[in-house]
């Protein structure tokens, strides 16, 4: 047992420790020039305590340990009645999360990777404000509780995001990949960036009305974040979820299956245990359109008279980390691939939109499934892209508009650069969304 837990146990009834050391090495390019190297080594700690039946919290970055315990105890003095116990001992699944090669990368290694990408893009598009961010990360995570949970994991992450604003405007296009291991960005992704950038050199504004829309993997957050809120045990227990009492009912088209898979080997979002020390498990959320389950942390599980299913994470739409309270959150959501090529989805449209992102998502009523965002993407006419979208908004309700899914692509990719940092999704062709344009 960690010394901090043992020490805390002398003054409180139960204690839970979350300790994370994160070392990152990042190189950043802007406008084809290396801007800076950033090297961070940060430890953060969260201590939760249950004392006299009440819950207390304290957080710190390199804090005084005794002060941390005192803060947690003081917090518990005013805290709410604890409705749950911290996680008990459990055996955790084995997940491949670490690659020593990533841990040994130097800034020169990262610069070499970026220079290769930069060189290839520069040949095709020499006068665009092209940028790259390449990061290698090594994290050590420990979650222990006085009730027996003892999770310890080491993980690495290697990620590259590159892209550029279109000439003269702020709208930009990003592409990227991530893994636990170093990789070279494939030529196909670079070629796709060049193709998509060229698509966007002209603009086009669709007329106002309903029309077919393809959501690219980068735009999957428009679906996954409202769904996350809907299946969150937190909202369900407060009876504000639009999916309250709907397990077993169809909520989407039968073409859509969503799973949460923290056990995916080699995926940087792989996790053997959640941030409360509960074992993680792969689970269907929506199967062929039918709602299968909610995601729960310890608190919401207790409120619903269930057990946590290992989805208590210190995450939030913005922020997260040690300071955030555990809340039900997807570990690694995946929308399952279909069997069509995304290029066929594009070529099959008389008129429609290919959406790569949406601005202003967080200003909408997304917990209820709704969104109204400035559309970032492309206008398609007669099966071909005619330009990037300009002066266009799309709005919808995932529980209405995802009833009618025409097709799902076989290609599946991470939603790099989006609000949702984890997960993969295919291209999804919706029968129609409301579009505000010319």
């Amino acid at each position: 047992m960690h010394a901090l837990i043992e020490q805390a146990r002398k003054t409180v009834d139960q204690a839970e420790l979350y300790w994370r050391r994160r070392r990152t090495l990042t190189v950043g390019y802007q406008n084809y020039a290396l801007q800076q190297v950033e090297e961070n080594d940060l430890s953060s700690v969260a201590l939760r305590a249950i004392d006299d039946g009440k819950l207390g919290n304290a957080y710190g970055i390199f804090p005084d340990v005794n002060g941390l315990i005192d803060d947690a105890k003081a917090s518990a003095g005013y805290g709410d009645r604890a409705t749950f116990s911290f996680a008990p001992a459990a055996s955790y699944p084995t997940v491949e999360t670490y690659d020593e090669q990533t841990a040994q990368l130097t800034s020169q290694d990262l610069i070499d990777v970026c220079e290769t990408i930069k060189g290839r893009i520069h040949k095709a598009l020499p006068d665009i404000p092209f940028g790259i961010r390449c990061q290698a990360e090594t994290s050590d995570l420990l979650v222990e509780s006085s009730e027996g949970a003892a999770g310890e994991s080491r993980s690495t992450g290697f990620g590259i995001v590159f892209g550029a604003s279109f000439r003269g405007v702020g709208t930009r296009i990003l592409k990227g990949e991530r893994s636990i291991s170093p990789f070279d960005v494939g030529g196909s992704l670079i070629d796709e960036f060049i193709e998509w950038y060229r698509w966007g050199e002209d603009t086009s504004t669709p007329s106002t009305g309903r029309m077919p829309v393809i959501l690219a993997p980068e735009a999957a957050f428009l679906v996954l974040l409202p769904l996350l809120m809907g299946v969150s045990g937190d909202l369900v227990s407060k009876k504000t979820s639009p999916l309250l009492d709907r397990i077993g009912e169809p909520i989407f088209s039968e073409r859509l299956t969503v799973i949460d898979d923290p056990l995916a080997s080699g995926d940087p979002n792989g996790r053997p245990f959640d941030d409360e020390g509960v074992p993680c498990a792969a689970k269907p959320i929506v199967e062929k359109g039918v709602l299968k389950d909610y995601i729960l942390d310890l608190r919401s599980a207790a409120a619903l008279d269930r057990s946590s299913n290992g989805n208590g994470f210190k995450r939030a739409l913005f922020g997260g980390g040690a300071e955030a309270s555990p809340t039900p959150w997807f570990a690694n959501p995946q929308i399952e691939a279909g069997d069509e090529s995304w290029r066929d989805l594009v070529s099959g449209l008389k008129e429609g939109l290919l959406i790569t992102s949406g601005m202003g998502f967080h200003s909408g009523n997304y917990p209820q499934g709704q969104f109204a965002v400035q559309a970032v993407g492309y206008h398609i006419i007669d099966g071909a892209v005619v330009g990037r979208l300009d002066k266009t908004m799309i709005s919808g309700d995932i529980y209405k508009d995802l009833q009618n899914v025409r097709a799902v692509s076989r290609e599946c990719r991470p939603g790099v650069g989006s609000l949702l940092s984890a997960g993969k999704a295919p291209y999804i062709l919706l029968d129609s969304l409301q579009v505000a344009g010319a």
Partner: protein
Amino acid sequence: MKDRLAAIAAELPADYADIRFEENRKVRILYEGKKLSEVAMTAMSGGHARAYANGGKAISSFSDPERAGPIAESTCNSAALVGTLRDKKLRLAEAPVIADSFLLSPAQDPRRISLKEKLDLATHYNEMILAEPNVITSQTYYDEFASRRVFVNSEGSAIEYELLNCGIVGFIVAKKGNVVQRVRFAFGGCEDFGRLLGREDDLKKQIVKACELLDAEPVKAGIFPVILDPSEAGVFIHEAFGHLSEGDGLQNNPAFRDRLKLQTDLGRPILNATDDPTLEGRPGHFVVDDEGVRGVKTHLITEGVLTGRLHSRETAAEFDEPLSGNMRAVDAPFTPLVRMSNVFIEPGDSSFDEMISSIDHGYYLVGSKGGQTSGDQFTFGAQWGFQIDNGRLGPMVSDINMSGELFSTLQAISMVGDDLRFNERGGCGKGTPMQTNRKSGTGAPHVKIDAVTIGGV
């Protein structure tokens, strides 16, 4: 600590280096409905080092103060490596050396208020919300951030300074049938705890609006003339224009640099916008930034013409423009970025009634609900709105998000009200990783825009 860090900074192998070390305390009290979800305290300390060497730049964040020396030295070496790979060398504008302390003593210092008193206040407001029959849940959040910082640089600056803010913010969630609506409320946002007291009438107004929204029709999609209330107009000037006045965003974007040269016509002569960190009692008030430079008032738009920009020492040198002291980091692990302080539209001379009566068919949009910007593209939400038909306010509308392009929208500002008001609570997200900054204020009078795109049904 200050002397030790100053000694380290003085010996670093760089053209310029600085170290910032922080000891911060946070208090959070969160009600979610009847449930007191969290009473939490955070103690955090940590440092950040920056170095410029050979025309390159590197930065590092660290937790352990004992490692400040070796980490800062390694940062200098990384900066030199970057310099070897850059054709265009980075430079810093000259700044005065400051050796001083800037500590805070607000009228009612939240650091001296007991945790129980803060909890009782949050409980009181939360119970008020939940007493309304249509309200199904609430989120009532007290937060306090107290930061004591030491800044030293290789030029001899050695500064101790404090940042402090406290606030109560939250959501009122009302439900009728299948319709659920949320309305935000926010008090405080500055150093003074007294600003949080006696706000029952203000909270009641927001509760009433949340309930009224349940019967409001969703806004119609299309392009309309709108009047933004001061809260919404403040967010507009922050999101749509303010971010493009930050030098670091423009530094490596040749197209926008070209479009945003000083003396460029951006709007009609009625439009004036200012950034001012010297406004005490506003969320974005500070004395020195996290680069050791004094914050000063900057006239960004004067009679429709671009007249100023916000800078770091690096961007001031790059643009050959005056220092503004806007380089700020939210917390110990983060590097400073160029950020607005209190940005606002100066008052004009139109009355609200004149503005309403000038619109045949459009919307009056009320209450900021956050926004997002990407270069010249912006999107932001409104808490609620009203139709305007034939120069008169009509029924309430809900679920409002609007978007536009900066340059055409600034030109479309056709009336500016005479009723400047500041939002109490600040907030701005910028950077990768995202730095969410509470110390960022906004303000404006009512503003009429001739055409914006509204997403709706």
